[in-house]
């Protein structure tokens, strides 16, 4: 939509019409109005875009009597022009006298903006205010909702220290209160579960023996023998986070809870170098988060061990929870918290979570297309492909899969017209795959950079950055996936939600920031996080988010803080 660049605008071609081609055509029609050349819009339409925050600059009072012209009523509504709603007037200053100079303070008046304050309102309200009864369907996903909103706000730099003073203002106090409430809520989602281990397994595993020792000291130790009295079993109290208070431990909410706690720990305790503790308004919340993580890391590890399932052919998979489904998500949801909490100690002689059999199971989920399915032979899918690749990256075993096939499949998921990604071959664009596919490409590109340093460069300067078209992706997110009233969505016809807000923003972050030189980033790789940028779409100074770690999907500074602590 910039005035100088043209974007591919080829629609998908087909010879045989089918349900799939119809759906694809509908989606292209749905997105097309958002790719309109801004220079062709009337001044009143541009004013509208300024008033909702999509364009920068100040503008005079919007004349409500002139409806935006040239847009279909559907497109107008999707762009936020809703006649039934009162106009949002974001302007404090009005310059009625200078009609010609009403756009001030921006370099490119046509540069599209991320509507930051609308997103922040939507996401912080979600965390702090009661949710309507419609959210009962997410009653087993409380830690997820918290992570989606918290990580999104963190990418929007909502909890970054204010540039100047003002740490005791009401807003900061409310934020600090909110972070404490989150830690408390997550604490209430934790559930203990008694687990049986062979005494030999406990002896051989330093973490289990350590946990066992602690529990013995606390008097929680129960020894038992099985029916034949041959195999002595030890009961260890493990646990995990459930989808809500008093729910069973489940590795997906555990993943979400650990990420959230690492974020808060870093917000509250991670800026010690530059800031006096007493000056960090979030210190107390950070300390509470650290305490909870320290208390739960070993019981969590014990719980994860009991989710292992031996598949045929020397492969180890994991269940999502006891008596729950087995798929490659579980592997990722377990390895990520373990990585963050220092439970994947490579020096340890027998760490069950570093077994090559785990990587073999992941590899067996790669399909003939190149992506990964939930289980062996399932169709290649964006979510599972991300989980598989990120888990292998954590294990340091990416090389056991067919990386070239994977990269080829991943880049083919970017849609030429829309610019966003789809989840599977011949499926529709969806903003959440901005991260699942875009993030996976970033993970893979990072791996290539490390392994392929010798590869000679061919091509123009255009050949830099990620393997996909990051400008086209940013364009999709900013134009089609943003709801100007706050929140992000799958596609224009779909309602915004927390999940899509999180993964659109995460994908936006991935596409804005250049890769770090190694993963996990070395301790020397600090600072400079936000300076090394890819090509940007829209208002480049305004839209930049904090940099997310494409493997863990928390900010890189949050991940570094966890690495120092555990």
């Amino acid at each position, binding site marked *: 939509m910039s005035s100088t660049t043209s974007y591919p605008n080829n629609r998908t071609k087909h010879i045989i019409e089918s349900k799939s081609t119809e759906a694809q055509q509908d989606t292209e029609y749905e997105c097309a109005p958002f790719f309109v050349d801004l220079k062709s819009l009337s001044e009143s339409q541009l004013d509208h875009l300024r008033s909702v925050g999509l364009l920068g600059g100040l503008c005079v009072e919007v004349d409500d009597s002139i409806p935006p012209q040239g847009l279909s009523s559907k497109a107008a509504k999707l762009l936020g022009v809703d006649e039934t709603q009162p106009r949002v007037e974001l302007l404090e200053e009005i310059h009625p006298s200078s009609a010609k100079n009403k756009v001030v303070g921006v370099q490119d008046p046509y540069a599209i903006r991320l509507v930051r304050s609308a997103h922040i309102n939507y996401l912080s309200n979600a965390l702090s205010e009661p949710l309507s009864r419609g959210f009962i369907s997410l009653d087993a996903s409380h830690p997820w909702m918290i992570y989606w909103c918290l990580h999104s706000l963190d990418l929007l730099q909502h909890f970054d220290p204010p540039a100047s003073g003002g740490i005791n203002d009401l807003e900061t106090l409310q934020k600090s209160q909110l972070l404490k409430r989150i830690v408390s809520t997550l604490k209430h989602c934790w559930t203990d579960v008694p687990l049986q281990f062979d005494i030999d397994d406990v002896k051989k595993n330093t973490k289990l023996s350590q946990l066992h020792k602690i529990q013995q000291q606390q008097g929680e130790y129960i020894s038992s023998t099985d029916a034949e009295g041959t195999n002595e079993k030890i009961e260890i109290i493990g646990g995990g986070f459930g*989808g809500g208070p008093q729910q069973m431990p489940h590795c997906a909410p555990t993943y979400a809870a650990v990420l959230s706690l690492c974020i808060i720990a870093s917000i509250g305790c991670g800026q010690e170098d530059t800031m006096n503790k007493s000056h960090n308004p979030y210190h107390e919340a950070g300390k509470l988060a650290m305490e909870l993580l320290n208390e739960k890391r070993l019981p969590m590890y014990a719980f994860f061990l009991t989710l292992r399932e031996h598949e045929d052919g020397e492969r180890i998979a994991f269940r999502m929870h006891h008596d729950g489904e087995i798929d490659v998500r579980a592997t990722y949801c377990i390895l990520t918290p373990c990585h963050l909490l220092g439970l994947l100690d490579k020096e340890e002689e027998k760490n069950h979570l570093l077994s090559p059999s785990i990587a073999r199971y992941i590899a067996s989920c790669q399909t003939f297309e190149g992506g990964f399915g939930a289980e062996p032979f399932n169709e290649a899918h964006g979510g599972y492909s991300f989980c598989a690749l990120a888990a292998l990256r954590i294990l340091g075993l990416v090389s056991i899969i067919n990386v070239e096939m994977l990269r080829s499949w991943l880049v083919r998921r970017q849609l030429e017209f829309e610019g966003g990604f789809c989840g599977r071959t011949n499926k529709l664009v969806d903003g959440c795959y901005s991260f699942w596919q875009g993030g996976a490409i970033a993970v893979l590109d990072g791996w290539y950079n490390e392994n392929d340093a010798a590869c000679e460069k061919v091509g123009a300067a255009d050949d830099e950055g990620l393997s996909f078209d990051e400008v086209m992706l940013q364009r999709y997110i900013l134009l089609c996936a943003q709801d100007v009233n706050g929140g992000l969505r799958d596609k224009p016809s779909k309602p915004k939600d927390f999940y899509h807000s999180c993964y659109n923003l995460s994908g936006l972050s991935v596409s804005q920031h250049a890769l770090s030189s190694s993963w996990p980033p070395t301790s020397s790789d600090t600072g400079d996080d936000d300076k090394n940028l890819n090509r940007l779409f829209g208002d480049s100074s305004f839209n930049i988010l904090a940099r997310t770690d494409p493997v863990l999907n928390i900010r890189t500074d949050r991940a570094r803080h966890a690495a120092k602590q555990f």
Partner: protein
Amino acid sequence: MNIPDVFSDIDPISQSDGPEPACAITYTPEFVEAHDYLRAVLKADERSERAFALTTICLKFNPANYTCWHFRRRCLVSLCTPTDSDARATVDVERIDTDLEFADKLGGTNPKNYQLWYHRRALLEIRFKGDERIQVAQKELGYVDKILGDDNKNYHAWSHRQWIIRTINQPQLWSAEIEYSHSKILLDPRNNSAWNQRWFATHEGEIAANSGMKLGKLSFEKAEEEANYAVCGAQVDPFNESPWRYLIGVLMEQCRWVQREEGADDKDKVNGLLRDCVAKIKDMNDSPTEDYPAGPCVSLMSALVDLLETVGDKTSLEEAKNMMGELVVEDPVRRKYWHKRQSTVLVLLGKVSE
């Protein structure tokens, strides 16, 4: 059911979410009442009829409540298994089938939650142990077919089909599944899930037919058939990515095989098939029929460069390199990827020339 009356002997347990929880949901009074009692029976591990009935109420509020599903299965197993030690441990199949129907109703026409599908698997695992396993499997395949009629790409549904077929592992089911995926491809050639199912059925089916001979690949004859199937699919609509990727998958699998010692005998045959396919695709590329929309076909070109690279002689690599140059222009959203691919081919070309 009047819950407090039915559970008058039990003290309800409220949700302990602490002061001022974040992301708190405004529950309805009915929801709170049912879940307060659910927590109480869970704590007591009361596997009774009334507890089972309570899980029905709670699951209707939220079918994603995995804790509740787990407890429901515990109840079901306890209630289905005779407690009389003399009685043979037969399972009340009717009861299990009723619960499958319950899950069906709860899921509606397009079920997409993990819990519902896992519940079916867990129950069917019990049913598949009985004598009527084939009939039960057929009936379940019918259920999945109904779901796929509504959403022909429902991921869980296809995955569930795979699980049924590999669990039962009967030759007639394998061959029927190839036909099934074919019928779905005819209805919508871009149903990639159906193409994936064909891969599953041909591959795992062949493994099953060879009684566990796990080569992890198709025989050459089968591969030839599948390659032809894919080429036909691509000829019908070359803009459809699915048949192309199926073709590449089949051919690459054979090429990897002949690079191994035990596959060396098949080398000439496989190379012949590969070159044959390349010739056909080039032909399609050079002389498009009238049906083709104007302009180059990116799906075809992408497949062709993959195969040319696999052929690997100097001429083919040169052709691949040039076509990648065209793709930089014709497939703009992937231009950086094609640049990278070109640099890899250049390295290969250097090696060939040496």
